[in-house]
């Protein structure tokens, strides 16, 4: 219960932090979306309900603080979580190169969805001059994902004494270290 009470505040902190860092490093030209790595991490590690709620809250906070259309990133984050969750149930998701590649794909899917949405909703031709920026963003986030997962693994070991595994693979629906 404490987790669900704290998560919105942690989400706000994360979104604000990632925006500030991106603004300082890239002067607003690129987006450093750590939040999507967190959603993928949730997909690999959390159970379905906890993960969906976490992704929903994170996406909603993202929309409130940074987005211009409420609901867009909430939908994307929930879909990315579900995609990660079902992939983690069928593939080994522990390897770092897999994490990097999967994150890259997810960021591409996210960007594609946003472009598609703007195209359908507002009729914008916004792909001009974008692919390079999108590629760069996806690459940066893809490279950051293994680092993030490694750090989270260290945190898991620190708190629970061993690394957590995919929730689905354990068959318990929960992170083993929590049980």
């Amino acid at each position, binding site marked *: 219960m404490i987790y669900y009470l704290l998560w919105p505040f942690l989400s706000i902190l994360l979104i*604000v932090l990632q*925006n500030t860092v991106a*603004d300082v490093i890239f002067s607003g030209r690129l987006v450093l979306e750590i939040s999507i790595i967190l959603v993928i991490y949730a997909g690999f590690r959390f159970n379905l309900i906890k993960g969906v709620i976490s992704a*929903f809250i994170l996406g909603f906070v993202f929309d409130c*603080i940074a*987005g211009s259309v409420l609901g867009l990133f*909430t*939908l994307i984050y929930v879909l990315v979580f579900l995609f990660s*969750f079902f992939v983690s149930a069928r593939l080994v998701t522990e390897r770092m190169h897999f994490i990097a590649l999967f994150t890259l794909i997810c960021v591409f899917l996210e960007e594609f969805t946003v472009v598609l949405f703007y195209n359908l909703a507002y009729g914008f031709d916004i792909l001009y001059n974008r692919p390079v920026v999108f590629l760069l*963003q996806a690459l940066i986030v893809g490279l950051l994902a293994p680092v993030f997962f490694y750090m989270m693994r260290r945190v898991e070991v620190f708190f629970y004494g061993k690394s957590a595994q995919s929730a689905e693979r354990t068959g318990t629906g929960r992170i083993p270290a929590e049980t």
Partner: protein
Amino acid sequence: MFSFRNYKTIIFIVILLAAILIVLSYNLKQKSPAWLIKKVVLEVAAPVQNILNASVKSVSDAWSRYLFLVGIEEENKNLKKKIDDLKAQLILYQEGYLEAERLRNLLALNDDYNFKFVTACVIGREQVTLSKTILINKGTAHGLKTGMPVLAGSGLVGRVIDVSWHAAKILLLIDESSNIDAIVQRNRTQGIIRGAGSRGYILKYISKTQDVEEGDVLISSGIGGVFPKGMMIGQISHVDQQEAGLFFKINVAPSVDFSKLEEVLVLIPDRNEHKGE
């Protein structure tokens, strides 16, 4: 392994997705309705953003101060020379302004709106994929409402889209969903300025028979009632005449450097004064 027999979980997720889709479609039609939960999130985010911003600013200020000292003598000389030139220009402009004021009074022309300004500090730049917004440290407690125009020293910045009690979110003009009616200052040709992200703006619906050229200044037309007339928007940077179709493809360079915004002015319509008149 997750079992699809777990219907409760599936129903929960389906309901959640349906709710998100409803909110999304509602927002598309309503254009950022004022929801309490959004206000609360903004209100919580504003102090966090303020603290982060202050610490980042102190570091960057120290660095820029150091850089500033390097070669300051040469810059000082140049600036003094520039000040002299500008003083001479200012006197000319003041004369022109006073003359215009006199003529305005003579013709009994009044502005359609009276505005008062609220100065606000930018506490966050939220630049997600295709969406360009900033957070400022003033909200409804200072008289801000959604839809109010926002200015920086050299021109229009955007409009308020979300307000909490002590913070507000501004949709920048460079956001792709931002549209504003504009006129070319030189010959009053009218078009629509649309945000184009890092490319600045695009001026739309200028027919190929009309006379526009690179360097033309664009100002707001006042049509639509959101932005007052005569506010600087930008300068035409490129006119593509080869593009097929009836209209030119025109790129516009913003008059404001959106990556360096620190303070902005929010224009609040002074309705009471207007009624009093």
